[in-house]
């Protein structure tokens, strides 16, 4: 029986194309076939460049025949959150009012993926201006969870999580300001990586909050995101927030036979509050699996008060910076913003500059205090990515009030604190709810120590198969 190349991982696919086992065109057709099956139900793409993708796949196959293939992603179809500029094209970031000038230079991460040989086949659904955790955008058809279309896709990188989870593409880039890569990855049963702040250039990505925005990949395995991180990371003079780091390969480090296992601590005291029973059970089972895999797994009691303060500072920074970015656009087009996103930004116009600067001044000391508590006896923290299982779309659309606000806040409770601290974090599947929805666990490492959490995730996926289980193929009703 022939292999379904839409089901394989990014690394398997890229290596098979390079090795001549399958052509880039065959892989693309497998993805397009899956697109035709599930896009009408899931609405994770906002645009598919089918003819251009076919042309580029044919070019890639010709290059391989002629021995000109190069790059770690050569011939692999990808699609990305609609927020990355590409010369000659307009990206709208899910909005009715924004569009980059067509002569805006191509985003650095897009240039790096191009250089690695990836084929961009389209653009993916996003919450308007990448600001919202449930994944609903009134400007587009409703994007739906890859596992159950009645449930939210997660946001804001909604299309990226769904398209990778439902096997339409092998990987996608998203952005993470409060959990927007890790949340969609968790609820769609795939792997999402948020690198250390400063590891990956944001140049050419639509900004939400300069202090917190981080670009990261979503894929089906830890090895996949390690390869993608190798491709997209590195200092960029066009993004002054990037920090120069040693040029090491994360993928090679994972595959090295003698790599030491990091010490893991289950985070207690903030990240384990208010857990749904299914999430609590999945996390405990994940900890057991890691112990069986040879890791030293302990518990660490974290200062819940400190983390609660951090959780309250993250939205202050996001709103202040978003309001500064949106000042002119919102003055001119306030009523063309979706009401929920407009109201999230609105508050930022009235935050005193003294409060905003206080939130930024304190960031270094919050990070030092957290690191002392978290990483004294461990290299990697283990937490649930979300404390809850993905709610239904009906529970999240058009709702207001305290209960709704609490539910939305719970979607980012365990992720947004990591953005404020600037630390790297990885979400990967660790089980299913009794209702059949994926559950994600989050690994958090020291700054620029992505290799530690990738190693833990890689071994976990060697010993479990949660990441290899594909969702049902949802077809349109009728």
């Amino acid at each position: 029986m022939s292999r379904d190349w839409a089901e394989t991982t990014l690394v398997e696919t890229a290596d098979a194309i390079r090795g001549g086992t399958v052509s880039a065109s065959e892989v693309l057709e497998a993805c397009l076939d899956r697109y035709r099956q599930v896009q009408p139900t899931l609405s994770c793409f906002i645009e598919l460049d089918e003819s251009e993708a076919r042309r580029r796949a044919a070019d890639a196959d010709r290059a391989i025949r002629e021995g000109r293939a190069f790059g770690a992603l050569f011939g692999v179809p990808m699609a990305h959150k609609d927020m990355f500029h590409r010369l000659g094209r307009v990206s709208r970031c899910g909005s009715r009012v924004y569009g980059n000038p067509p002569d805006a230079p191509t985003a650095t991460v897009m240039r790096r993926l191009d250089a690695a040989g990836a084929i961009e086949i389209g653009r993916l659904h996003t919450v308007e201006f990448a600001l919202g955790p449930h994944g609903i955008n009134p400007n587009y058809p409703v994007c739906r969870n890859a596992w159950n279309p009645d449930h939210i896709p997660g946001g804001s990188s909604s299309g990226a999580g769904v398209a990778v989870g439902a096997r339409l593409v092998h990987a996608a880039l998203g952005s993470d300001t409060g959990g927007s890569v890790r949340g969609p990855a968790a609820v769609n049963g795939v792997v999402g990586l948020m690198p250390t702040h400063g590891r990956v250039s944001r140049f050419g990505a639509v900004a939400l909050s300069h202090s917190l925005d981080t670009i990261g990949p979503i894929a089906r395995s830890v090895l996949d995101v390690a390869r993608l991180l190798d491709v997209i990371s590195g200092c960029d003079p066009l993004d002054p927030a990037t920090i120069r780091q040693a040029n090491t390969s994360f993928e090679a480090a994972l595959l090295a036979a003698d790599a030491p296992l990091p010490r893991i601590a289950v985070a207690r005291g903030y990240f384990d509050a208010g857990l749904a029973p299914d999430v609590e059970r999945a996390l405990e089972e994940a900890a057991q699996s890691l112990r069986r895999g040879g890791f030293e797994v302990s518990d660490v009691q974290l200062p819940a008060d400190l983390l609660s303060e951090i959780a309250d500072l993250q939205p202050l920074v996001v709103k202040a910076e978003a309001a500064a970015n949106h000042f002119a656009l919102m003055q001119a087009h306030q009523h063309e913003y979706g009401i929920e996103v407009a109201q999230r930004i609105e508050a930022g116009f009235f935050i005193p500059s003294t409060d905003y600067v206080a939130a930024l001044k304190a960031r270094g000391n919050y990070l030092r205090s957290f690191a002392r508590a978290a990483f004294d006896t461990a290299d990697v923290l283990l937490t649930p990515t979300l404390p809850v299982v993905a709610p239904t779309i009906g529970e999240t659309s058009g709702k207001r009030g305290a209960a709704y606000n609490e539910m939305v806040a719970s979607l980012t409770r365990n992720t947004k604190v990591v953005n404020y601290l600037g630390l790297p974090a990885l979400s990967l599947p660790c089980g299913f709810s009794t209702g059949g929805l994926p559950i994600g666990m989050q690994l958090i490492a020291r700054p620029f120590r992505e290799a530690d959490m990738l190693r833990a995730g890689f071994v976990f996926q060697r010993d479990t198969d949660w990441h290899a289980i594909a969702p049902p193929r949802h077809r349109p009703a009728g």
Partner: protein
Amino acid sequence: MSREADLILALNDAGPRLDISETRAEELAIEMRQHRAAAEAARRMSAFNTEPADFRRALEDLARLRP
């Protein structure tokens, strides 16, 4: 209307001039109180001379610490 909501409407008139109803101004006043409390906590975490770039130094210092 609360004094904070009045202040928000006055700041709005002086600055962004968004369409904000009195009801919405009251909601924003609650949000502002939450942000003010967060900022008060943050003020206790930094010194007079601390600058925001201290965060970048903290990231790099912690990256250099070997486990």
